[in-house]
């Protein structure tokens, strides 16, 4: 898996060097500069130019055409973080419907075109709405979901600390029954107490 990652990034570097812009479109090659004047030189220059262009085309187009199809793992890596726009709460990599198969093919195509993860997700959001993302995008109303739980927790902590502080300020004369120490035992009392306890235990569920 590490190897695949490295391969992707090095391939993109190559992409940059050869093509320039990320998105490949036919006929997007960088134009060459015009050569110097002089008829023969001009003709030679033309031949050289055209020849190089052809050579250039021969070299790059197979590369562009042969960009290996992104593997299932690459598609799934992205599909795992996205949700089926139609069936609710089903991640895109596990959804069995034909629609989801089409979307995974679309992801594969976009990865093949060289789009980044963020760009592909953005495309999906544009086409199909916010639902495809695994978390609400951080804008507008959706901020509430990120802010409210911590606010609630901190608020609760503040209340609790306050209650504890007021409690500790109170005179500790009203302690609950301390169960750590027993008075010196009185035999008769003890046996009667035990009998009563037994009786109570039987009565309780």
């Amino acid at each position, binding site marked *: 898996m590490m190897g695949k990652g490295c391969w992707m990034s090095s391939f993109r570097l190559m992409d940059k060097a050869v093509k320039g812009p990320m998105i490949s479109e036919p006929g997007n090659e960088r134009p060459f500069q015009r050569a110097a004047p002089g008829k023969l030189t001009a003709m030679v220059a033309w031949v050289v130019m055209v020849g190089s262009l052809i050579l250039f085309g021969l070299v790059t187009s197979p590369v562009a055409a042969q960009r290996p199809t992104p593997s299932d793992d690459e598609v799934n890596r992205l599909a795992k973080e996205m949700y089926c726009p139609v069936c609710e709460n089903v991640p895109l990599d596990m959804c069995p419907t034909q629609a989801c198969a089409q979307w995974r093919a679309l992801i594969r195509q976009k990865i093949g075109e060289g789009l980044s993860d963020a760009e592909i997700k953005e495309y999906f959001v544009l086409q199909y709405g916010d639902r495809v993302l695994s978390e609400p995008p951080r804008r507008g109303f959706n901020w509430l979901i990120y802010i409210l739980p911590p606010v609630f927790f901190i608020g609760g902590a503040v209340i609790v600390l306050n209650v504890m502080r007021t409690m500790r300020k109170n005179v500790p004369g009203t302690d609950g029954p301390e169960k750590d120490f027993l008075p010196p*035992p009185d035999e008769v009392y003890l046996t009667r107490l035990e009998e009563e306890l037994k009786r109570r235990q039987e009565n309780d569920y």
Partner: protein
Amino acid sequence: MIENLGFGVLVITLIVCIYGIFASFYGLRKNSLAWVESARKAMLLTFPLITLAVISIVILLVSGRYDVQYVYNVTSNTMPLYLKITALWGGQSGSLVFWSWLLAAFTTAVTLRKWNRDREFLPWVIIIGLVTLVFFVSLVVFVENPFVRFWQTPTGGRVVSMFQPVEALLINPPDGRGLNPLLRHPGMIIHPPMLYLGFVSFVIPFAFAIAALITGRTDDRWIRVTRRWTLVAWLFLSLGLVLGSRWAYDVLGWGGYWAWDPVENAAFMPWLTGTAFLHSVMIQEKRGLFKRWNIILIILTYSLVIYGTFLTRSGVLSSVHAFAQSAIGPLFFIYLTFTMVVSLGLLLYRWSSLRSEGTMHSVLSREALFLLNNLLFMGILAVTFWGTNFPLISELFTGQKVTVGPAFYNRSAGPLFAGLLFLMGVAPLSAWGHSTVKTLGKALWKPLVGSLLVLVAMYVGGIRQWGALLALWLCALVIFITLYEYIRGVLARQRRSGEILPVALWNLASRNRRRYGGYIIHLGVVLMALGIIGIEMFQTETQATIPPGGSIQLGQYEVSFTRLDLFDTDDGRNVARATMSVSQNGRPVGDLFPRRDFYYDSGQPMTIPGVRSTLEDDLYILLVDWEPITSTGVTFKVYRNPLINWLWIGGFVFILGTLVAAWPDKDPEPTRVSVSRRNIASRQADG
């Protein structure tokens, strides 16, 4: 005939319940024991009546009466007998009858106890139990009737009704639609009943809490009475959740054990407040604190049960779990409103009488740590609740649907869970009343050192993610503390009684089951945490399409596709089964058989993975069924889930611990107690 009997019995039940409610109120007003006794007898009558209804449904299911709509929807000829019986809870109306049956069982059981010391609670508990029963049975009788049948009217139209329409003829389909194949699994036998048992049984502590609020007896009597009931309810709910998780992992969830699906969350939220409640009541019993917390927690637990059922059955949230949308949504909503408003009103009415009897002295005392415990559980509840409801609320305000997925929950609740893990270790070591850093440190330092050694070992072993390191360190800490407590207790006991080790261990636990059962439960939780950390942080996966003879590599595993078998089975399935040979680090370790079953009657497929389980990890292979399965190429998905089996082992330990904790203590041994330095040491060890 049987269906009419079943329906009639339910109508009678409804009448009996309503009578019981009125009798109880009348008995309260007239201060008449006789009327309350009559109400109690009415309550006792409900269980046998609903049992008759349940038997009717089961007979209809087993005998293939497809003219009954419910039977048609959930059974078919090819389904085995055990699935036909469990189809009782396979659909909306049947599961409502099942719920009512369990509810009647519990309320009847609590009515059978000795009420000598709690006479004033009795009428109110009866009323609350019967009101709940009236609600659920009314749903069945008036809205979701499992006994309705198919009729053909003279004009040729098809009608579904309980009683015969004028001049209509009964339609008798030859076969049913059958249960969704995903549900045709042994998990169907036990997961829904356990969950329902958990949900339903929380009505008992709730009823007592409300009775306590109404009568003003807000001391800890109601808690003592319901202590075991609460534990039983919590046990069933925990069991239901763990079983659901295992079932999802086995078949349903593509190697996932929990998806933070809205319906899963609906069952998880009452568990959260229920666990907090379980812990918090100990404080009220021992120190008279947290009275308000406890009332709030049990009201929340019961309200969340109703709310969760509402979410699942009303169609408000859609998920793979949800039942089809129906008219019971609004009715559940009304019941929920009624419950919550009344509970809140009573709570505020009795607010001042719920004042604490004690004070908290130190921030590190056990009471304070339990308070932190409550806070953390409420925090996780807030995250879960908000995440589950946010898509609904967001759609109301923005018109856009959003999804809240596991990433949100993991990030938000993860730190809180880590905090709970830490508390689970530290809190048992803190003392009641007074505790300082020194006393806590003295109890803590040996296990702490042990856990730090483990931390170093893990780092050296190659784990670098700081989240994993932190979580694993916490697990080690809690394990060491638990073992340390057990060892200390056993040694102290041996010093005093001279018993041999196993006997000392047994006696230690049986004299104080709550404490030592609690330790086992915590141990179980830590093991489960271990499994969760393994699969969440270290899972690897891969997917590829290979021809027979090809192989897939995932880390140290190599999976070779040996052959593909395609055949039909007797029970109406078409099976595509792949034989995969697995080798680990070059060494063959066996064959796995992932397969795809296609059910002819319902037209739905199901994939069953081939899994190799060890303590270290699971190798989990799925046959991807939406890609074509041909002799030239099949698509497989392979997961490696490290440590996942500790999740199930931990679940088992967890349940075991709960049984230990729930079992009544042996009689306390009468011992002469004199205050001396030596005895203090041994007594403190005993707890």
